């Protein structure tokens, strides 16, 4: 009897629950009224304001700025250039000849990059990225390349594989801070013989900035960079992104780069300017001759200025094409004995001619 009553009670509860559940799940369907209104009186919204004390932040965008690249697959070609190499004195006269000091080579290689916004909020944006740049050096008359420096470049070229992190932290509606850090493996390695992690090169920058309007943001900062080739270069920075109108603007992070921008439309633009590129490359050689051994473990201090014209346009949706042409002017390609060697204390001096270069890339751009 007890079980019978319990069973009936449970059934009653269950049916009741089903009924209530049905009524409530049906309720929204009944309540789905069309709340659309024709908002003709837009003036009323000027009387609206925040419901509570709200902290607002500036964005990192300036109107008509060239698009941020999330993924980039590119290729660069530098036309033939000559290299003239001179080894510093060994302090002994019993050495063999250092080989032909002059050679001509063509440099080319992939330039890949990916940049992911792992946190993207109004109050902070954190991007993590990877990049891979290579300079493969195809020498003319390869059989005649007998200089240890040229052989090292010919066999493996130069590579950069890096990780980067960028933080954009708006402090309020007018001020912001940018912190960025890079860790690069630079050298003449290949993927069967990856350079040891102990040869990582670090760069870092910090900027404090002002967002004056949707058309102007600028900032001052400091960077530890290898763009000038030498070790541990610290330089002041000036960031200046300005849009004068819907056609013209400036994008600058001095001294690293400066571009004058002309927007043909929201989906195509032209940039005229320069970029200073550079790094310190760890060199390894396996040859046993004294010149090769001299540069084994040494560092190429590379720094070059690229004056260039860049055309970017949307191909489809968020896929953009970038095409670039210009002249590459060498500033430094000399070799220091070690990464920590004093500045301008070179064991090899290289002089390069300044070739034309061309580059293109396919990019997935940010919303």
């Amino acid at each position, binding site marked *: 009897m007890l079980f019978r009553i319990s069973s009936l009670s*449970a059934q009653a509860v269950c049916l009741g629950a089903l009924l209530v*559940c049905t009524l409530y799940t049906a309720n929204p369907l009944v309540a789905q009224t*069309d709340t659309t209104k024709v908002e003709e009186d837009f003036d009323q919204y000027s009387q609206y304001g925040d419901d509570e004390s709200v902290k607002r932040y500036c964005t990192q965008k300036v109107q008509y700025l060239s698009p941020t690249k999330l993924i980039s697959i590119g290729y660069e070609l530098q036309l033939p250039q000559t290299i003239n190499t001179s080894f510093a004195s060994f302090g002994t006269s019993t050495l063999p000849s250092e080989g032909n000091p002059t050679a001509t080579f063509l440099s080319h290689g992939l330039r890949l990059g990916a940049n*992911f916004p792992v946190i*993207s909020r*109004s109050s902070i944006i954190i991007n993590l990225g990877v990049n891979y740049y290579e300079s493969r050096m195809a020498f003319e008359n390869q059989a005649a390349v007998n200089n240890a420096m040229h052989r090292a470049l010919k066999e493996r070229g130069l590579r950069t594989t890096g990780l980067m992190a960028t933080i954009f932290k708006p402090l309020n509606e007018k001020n912001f801070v940018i912190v960025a850090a890079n860790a690069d493996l630079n050298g003449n390695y290949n993927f069967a013989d990856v350079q040891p992690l102990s040869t990582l090169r670090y760069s870092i920058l910090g900027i404090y900035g002002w967002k004056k309007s949707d058309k102007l943001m600028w900032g001052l900062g400091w960077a530890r960079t290898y763009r000038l080739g030498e070790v541990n270069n610290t330089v002041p920075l000036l960031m200046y992104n300005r849009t004068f109108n819907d056609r013209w603007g400036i994008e600058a992070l001095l001294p690293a780069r400066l571009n004058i921008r002309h927007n043909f439309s*929201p989906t195509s633009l032209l940039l005229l300017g320069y970029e200073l590129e550079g790094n310190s490359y760890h060199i390894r050689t396996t040859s046993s001759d004294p010149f090769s051994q001299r540069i084994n473990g040494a560092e190429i201090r590379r720094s070059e200025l690229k004056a260039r014209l860049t055309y970017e346009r949307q191909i489809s949706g968020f896929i953009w094409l970038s095409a670039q042409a210009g002249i590459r002017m060498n500033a430094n390609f000399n070799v220091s004995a070690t990464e920590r060697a004093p500045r301008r204390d070179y064991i090899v001096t290289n002089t390069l001619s300044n070739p034309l270069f061309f580059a293109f890339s396919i990019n*997935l751009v940010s*919303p």
Partner: protein
Amino acid sequence: MLTMEMKKWQLFTWTAVAIVCCYLFLNTYANDKYADAIIGVWKTGSGKGMVRIYKEGNKYYGKIVWLKEPNDENGKPKVDKNNSDESLRNRPLLGLVNLRDFVYKGNKVWEDGRIYDPENGNDYSCEMKLTDENTLEVRGYIGVSLFGRTDIWKRQVKKD
């Protein structure tokens, strides 16, 4: 004649069904309670515009109802000049429906929608999440949510 064991199982079964029904009811109620919580006037993260979110059928939409700078350089009302469709470049920004087709998915999340950015003429996939009564996270993205950007919108109320 039901045995004692069968009765026990019958009681257990009915009790389980009742618990499941109650759970479904509470869950449905809790979810649906917030479905319309997104309706209202919101200011974008940059503070340059207000969007009124409304409901049409089972879906949610938003239209631009206020602009900090409503006129262009020539003093004329701003139009959708960056639209890739030339025939739409003369439509006014004020009143433009820039949020479309959002569906409430529960847990204060609205998905499957699109957002249009008149500043560059791009149209993105979009999802929105109400993090508190007056804060809306609006994430526009390409393809997968990883490639996107989140903007924080704040609810606006009429001031006396």
